[in-house]
């Protein structure tokens, strides 16, 4: 009993330590089945040279400021590239059919549902995920606001909500739209929250919107 408990605590400590390490994560876990080329400086033009199977294609992509050269199954979605190939599990799979928004990331600065975007379609693109919003220990204003306003409960839809909010604030700035509560609700309706944290989400976004009036909202430190 005693040794089990100590084992459990060691396990538990490792889990929490794991999680703390995530915050400083720079290396990406490679999973079985994916071949990752060496990190490339700059983003060269994509080669369409096919690999051993006719359905695997090479591509280049920049994620949170880091370039990747990969050969992928043509069926791989951007979402699964992030979660399974490069190990950035912050972006979530909620429905895999573009019906919930949990997989929202920024591609070339715009918010999209990564589950319906084929990885190969993102050859040459720049991706910002939830892991790319903070600058070291300094959280993005939206991340801090979500904590202050309790804009989440279980946290599963949260990365998608925050990335969506980053994109939304940028869109609103370009459109010169006035963000009333109702406008925010409508513009964030592509992100479902089953825990019902909507009031907190709106409050968090309003907080940042008002703080930023007249300023640019940073997308990430490493676009």
């Amino acid at each position, binding site marked *: 009993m005693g040794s089990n408990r100590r084992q459990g605590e060691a396990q538990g400590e490792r889990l929490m330590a794991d999680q703390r390490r995530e915050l400083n994560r720079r290396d990406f876990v490679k999973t079985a089945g994916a071949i990752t080329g060496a990190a490339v400086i700059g983003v060269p033009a994509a080669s369409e040279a096919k690999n051993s199977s*006719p*359905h695997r294609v090479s591509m280049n992509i920049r994620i949170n400021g880091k370039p990747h050269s990969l050969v992928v199954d*043509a069926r791989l979605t951007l979402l699964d590239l992030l979660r399974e190939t490069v190990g950035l599990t912050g972006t979530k799979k909620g429905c895999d059919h573009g019906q919930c928004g949990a997989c929202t990331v920024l591609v070339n600065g715009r918010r999209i549902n990564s589950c319906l975007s*084929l990885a190969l*379609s993102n050859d040459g693109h720049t991706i910002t995920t939830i892991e790319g919003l903070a600058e070291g220990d300094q959280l993005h204003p939206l991340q801090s606001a979500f904590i202050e306003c309790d804009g989440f409960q279980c946290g599963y839809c949260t990365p998608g909500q925050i990335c969506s909010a980053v*994109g939304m604030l940028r869109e609103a700035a370009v459109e010169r739209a006035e963000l009333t509560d109702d406008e925010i609700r409508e513009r964030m309706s592509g992100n479902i929250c089953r825990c019902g944290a909507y009031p907190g989400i709106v409050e968090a976004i309003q907080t940042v919107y008002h703080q930023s009036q007249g300023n640019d909202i940073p997308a990430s430190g490493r676009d």
Partner: protein
Amino acid sequence: MFPFEYDRPTQQEKVIDALSHSNRTKILAGGTNLVDLMKNGVEQPERLVDINRLDLTTIAQLDDGGVRLGALAHNSDTANHPLIRERYPLLSQAILSGASPQLRNMATNGGNLLQRTRCYYFTDSGFPQCNKRLPGSGCGAIEGFNRIHAILGGSSQCVATHPSDMCVALAALDATVRVQSSKGVRTIEFPNFHRLPGDTPRLDTNLEPDELILSIDLPPSRFASHSHYLKIRDRASYAFALVSVAAALEMDDEKIRTARIALGGVAHKPWRATEVEKELVGRRAERTLFELAARLAVRDARPLNHNMFKVELVPHAIVRALSLAGGVA
């Protein structure tokens, strides 16, 4: 998904070539409908031609004063384009009421035209009956759940509806669709782009398998000051229309010179309510006229077990849309 070959050519000719080679080759633009259906196993292309490198994103004024919408321009960019907001607010409104912001950022104008029905029996390959997906297998909706299905233009083989909002506005605005094949470029008038199901429910549009959509062209704007897109759905956002109305009026003081009414959520294609339009022309824009005219839209409606409410809802919606378009109480 079934395995497929993937290409991303930079030249239009290559795309058209690929399309004419095989009918198991499909175009990938935004992917918001195609990738969804591929995951469901409803679409199983052997080859995907990603056309996102083609130069078809421009939105610009035409010589005749109209506007050309590039087929690859994103829905969101189209809706927010100054030319569209100013001159075709109806189109802007319609696009912005559809899907979600993320999907609108991905979806393209061409893809929006080609999106397929959301009928449950079509999208789920686990249902045995769907004449659209499996010709001859029957229609699951006619005796099944048909609350979201057609009341106009259906057939004994298919009662699916077209899910697009943008297309309803395009129908009201007399858009034309420019397409290219190896035979050259041709123009399709909007009412002829989408089909009724008839006994060929497998076919959604009159686009030939080897044709690529280049642009959607809008005639010079006539309805910028008096138009409204009304969408009625089961929740406040991120849902398909139960019924939608694109209403556009060209006014001579208080009299209606031209009227356009297109309906969504009621048929296999956006439905121009031409009988209503004719009734409105030359009359004063007022509620009593709207109420009388609106009834004409459903005169030939053939409701199903679960969608009879649309027969009442459509006239109410038309009246509401016209009132908002005409600035009438």
